[in-house]
């Protein structure tokens, strides 16, 4: 009987110490801020975000609390990711644009954040809502070209500032708001953009071909002119002989194939000697 009773008592003792230790000590990693709640009431914050504190100088590590009375809620200390769903924005010149934005934020006041919304998920939801409506409002006031242009960054700064004011009530600081994508919606707007690109290219192709033909014609014309000049230079020395010379060439060329019938008069110069008369 005693054999079994004693080890059980020891085990219970060990267990009690374990429970007590785990209820007293807790470790806070560098990536978290811990809110210590005493019976549900926020008592203090351990390892709260401090922009100046270096890692290693923070309050992270092993920390003591009052066992059983106090419990700990961890809140992320890092820069968190807020990816918003795509939304369609209508610019002032009535063109649709699909905008995909993201923000980076940090919980700088964990207690306020815990009391207002409770969890990180809820913070994200609340911020996404604020940011989405802010984005739509601000972007909807811009012409289409401005949404694509570098001016966008100042626009983003304005949005960030105005969202930050609202985010502060959740204990959150928005570090950055950026447009990840700003695209034409698929369907008619995209197709018409393609059509415009195609027509622009078709025009370019036509221009290139026409320009090529023009160049070619100029080259030919210049060649014709050069040739004429050469001929004129050579033949102009004796136009009469040229006429004769060229006629001879033309006769040879014309009657080359021998299918013609020639009717000659005996008075023809070729037949001048034919009749044997000497008319010299």
């Amino acid at each position, binding site marked *: 009987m005693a054999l079994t009773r004693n080890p059980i008592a020891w085990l219970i003792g060990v267990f009690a*110490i374990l429970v007590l230790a785990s209820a007293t000590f807790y470790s806070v990693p560098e990536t978290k801020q811990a809110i210590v709640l005493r019976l549900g009431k926020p008592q203090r914050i351990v390892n709260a975000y401090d922009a100046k504190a270096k890692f290693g100088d923070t309050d*992270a590590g092993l920390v003591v609390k009052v066992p059983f009375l106090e419990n700990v809620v961890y809140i992320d200390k890092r820069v968190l990711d807020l990816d918003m769903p795509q939304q369609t924005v209508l610019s002032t010149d009535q063109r649709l644009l699909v905008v995909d934005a993201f923000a980076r934020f940090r919980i700088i006041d964990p207690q306020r954040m815990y009391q207002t919304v409770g969890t990180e998920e809820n913070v994200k939801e609340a911020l996404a809502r604020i940011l989405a409506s802010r984005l739509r409002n601000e972007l909807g006031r811009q012409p289409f070209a401005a949404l694509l242009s570098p001016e966008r960054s100042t626009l983003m700064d304005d949005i960030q500032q105005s969202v930050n004011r609202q985010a502060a009530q959740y204990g959150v600081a928005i570090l950055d708001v950026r447009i*990840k994508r700003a695209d034409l919606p698929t369907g008619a707007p995209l197709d018409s*953009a393609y059509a415009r690109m195609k027509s622009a290219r078709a025009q370019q192709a036509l221009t290139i071909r026409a320009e090529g033909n023009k160049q070619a014609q100029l080259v030919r014309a210049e060649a014709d002119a*050069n040739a004429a000049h050469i001929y004129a230079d050579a033949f102009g020395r004796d136009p009469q002989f040229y006429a004769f010379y060229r006629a001879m060439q033309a006769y040879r060329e014309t009657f080359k194939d021998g299918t013609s019938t020639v009717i000659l008069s005996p008075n023809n110069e070729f037949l001048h000697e034919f009749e044997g008369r000497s008319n010299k």
Partner: protein
Amino acid sequence: MPAQFNNDSSDGGGPWGGGNSNGGGSGGGGGPKSPWGEGPRRPTPNRGPTGRADFDDFLRKSQDRLRGSLPGGGGGGTMNIPWLPIAIAIFGIWLFFTATYRVQAQDRAVVMRFGKFIETTGPGFHFKLPAPIDTVVMKKVEQINSVDISGGEGASENLMLTGDQNIIDIAYAVRWKIKNPELFMFELAEPEATIHEVAEAAMRAEIGRATLNDAIGPQRAQIAEQVRQRMQEILDTYRAGIDVRGVDIKQADPPPAVKDAFNDVSAAQQDAVQVINQSKGYAQQLLAVAQGSAAQFDAVYAQYKLAPEVTRKRMYLETMESVLSKVDKTVIEPGNVQTYLPLAEVQRRRALPSPAPATPVQAK
């Protein structure tokens, strides 16, 4: 956890010493509670907080008992002796493995004590406090990672609006490495997703400033470099501890839907070059013919000048001879005869295949 913590606090001693001092302090009967303390199953009559003197006694007794009891009540007490050294040896090995670590050449080790950052150590062999107290995370600082940012052929991720409101199909990769391991670990919740999003934002911002022709062609490298700088700036504002090494634009084309039109432009350029080349060929040929004819004429004319009458006559007769020898000839005295020209026959003859006209010529 607490048990191991205690082991450490009484560093020099074996597991027994640590366990016992703790047990005594907490006043419970849980003295030999360390993992090797399962042995004493025997009842201890004087269990309970009876003071330190009793405790040493108790310890000795329980160790004796341990030796005696473990082989299952068999008489041979000598068989039980190795248990303590084995336990110490196991503990030593455990201590060695958990209190030391090696950092490979390409790594940096981030040491944390209960989650608190202690230091970043370089390559080599290092000591730390045992397992649950100090934890070490290795980060590959030398390794260059590459993130592909493209959603496959024609995916919407690849299509971007350029500054001149055209659409470009672009695929690129970002090369990065960890610059500062502790920032990388502690500052960003999702470093890799952040790189991805920052890359997209930076690329779109740059493409939004460029024209389509620039982005497709000459300014690609410049755009990539600007994207890299912009990414680095943004990540630095997040204190991400990331070094963006480079952005590689793998593909920057017009979208597939308009590719034909773009191809037609390059075809048009080829066509234009072709037409111009043909015309140049024509020009060369024409020039050569003209020069040849002129030279020929000059040569003949030089001879003609020497004896104009004779040369002219000779040329005429030679030409006529050559011409008239091949054709049908009819000599008619004008005026004397009423001329009847058998045109029908002439035309029929002309229509005949080539050997046919030869026959009448030869017949003559």
